C-alpha cells in the first residue's frame, strides 16, 4: 500500500512539517527525498522580481497530479508521496512547490521525486506570470523541460 497526498493552496507551507507528516505515514521507509521549488529573486534577465502569479485549472490540476504520481508508483517501490503546490500571488524566495517521496530504498525515492517534478512542470495545468519593474509577463515553457520528460521515456 502506498499513500498519496495532493494539496493545492494559497498559503505558505513549511517543508519540515510536510516531511514529518509524510514520514509518519510510513513504517518501512529508509530514505526520504524532497524537492522544494522556490520563486527566484530575479527574472531570466536578472531583473528583480516583484511577484509571481500562479494560475491553474481547478479540478484538472489535482487530477493530473494524481495521474503523475500513479505513473511513478507503477515504476518504483514507494511507500508514501506528497505534492503540495501553491497558487495565486507569491513573492520572491517564497516556496512554490514541495514534492516528497519515501521508500525502503533511496534509488526509488530519488527517481519518484524527480519524475513527479519533471512531469508536474509540463503536464499539470499551471501558468506563471512574473511582475518586475519592467511590467508583467507570462512565462514561456522551456524546451529543456520537454527534454527532461523525454529522458524518462527512454529509460
Amino acid at each position, binding site marked *: 500500500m502506498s499513500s498519496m497526498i495532493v494539496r493545492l493552496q494559497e498559503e505558505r507551507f513549511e517543508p519540515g512539517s510536510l516531511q514529518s507528516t509524510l514520514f509518519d505515514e510510513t513504517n518501512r521507509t529508509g530514505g526520504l527525498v524532497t524537492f522544494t*521549488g522556490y520563486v527566484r529573486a530575479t527574472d531570466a534577465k536578472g531583473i528583480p522580481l516583484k511577484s509571481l502569479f*500562479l*494560475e*491553474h*485549472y481547478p*479540478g*484538472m490540476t489535482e*487530477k*493530473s497530479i494524481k495521474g503523475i504520481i500513479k505513473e511513478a508508483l507503477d515504476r518504483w517501490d514507494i511507500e508514501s508521496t506528497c505534492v503540495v*503546490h501553491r497558487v495565486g500571488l507569491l513573492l520572491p524566495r517564497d516556496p*512554490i*512547490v514541495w514534492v516528497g517521496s519515501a521508500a525502503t530504498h533511496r534509488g526509488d525515492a530519488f527517481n519518484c521525486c524527480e519524475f513527479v*517534478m519533471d512531469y*508536474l*512542470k*509540463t*503536464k*499539470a*495545468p*499551471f*501558468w*506563471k*506570470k512574473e511582475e518586475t519593474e519592467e511590467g508583467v509577463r*507570462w*512565462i*514561456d*515553457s*522551456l524546451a529543456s523541460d520537454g527534454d527532461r520528460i523525454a529522458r524518462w521515456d527512454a529509460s
Partner: protein
Amino acid sequence: MIKVFFFGRLRETLNASSIDISDLSELATVDKVRIHLSKSYGPIWEEALNQSNIVISVNQVVVSADTAIQDGDELAFFPPMTGG
C-alpha cells in the same frame, strides 16, 4: 451544450475565462471547435487560437486535435503549462 475554458496568456488575450456553445451540429471534434471559435469573434481570437502550441483538454484530460466531442463535455484551450 459544451463549455470551453481558457487559461493563462490565452485567457488574457481573449479577455474571456469561458464560453458556452449551444449548437454543436458542425462541431464533431475539438479542432472543429477551435476553428469555429477562431472564425466567430474577430482577428484577435483568430490569431490567438491558431497558435501552433495551444493545448486542448476534454473533461480535464489533454487530447489530440481529432478527438471527438459530445454534448456536456468540458473543453479547455491553454498555452503550454509552466508549473512547479
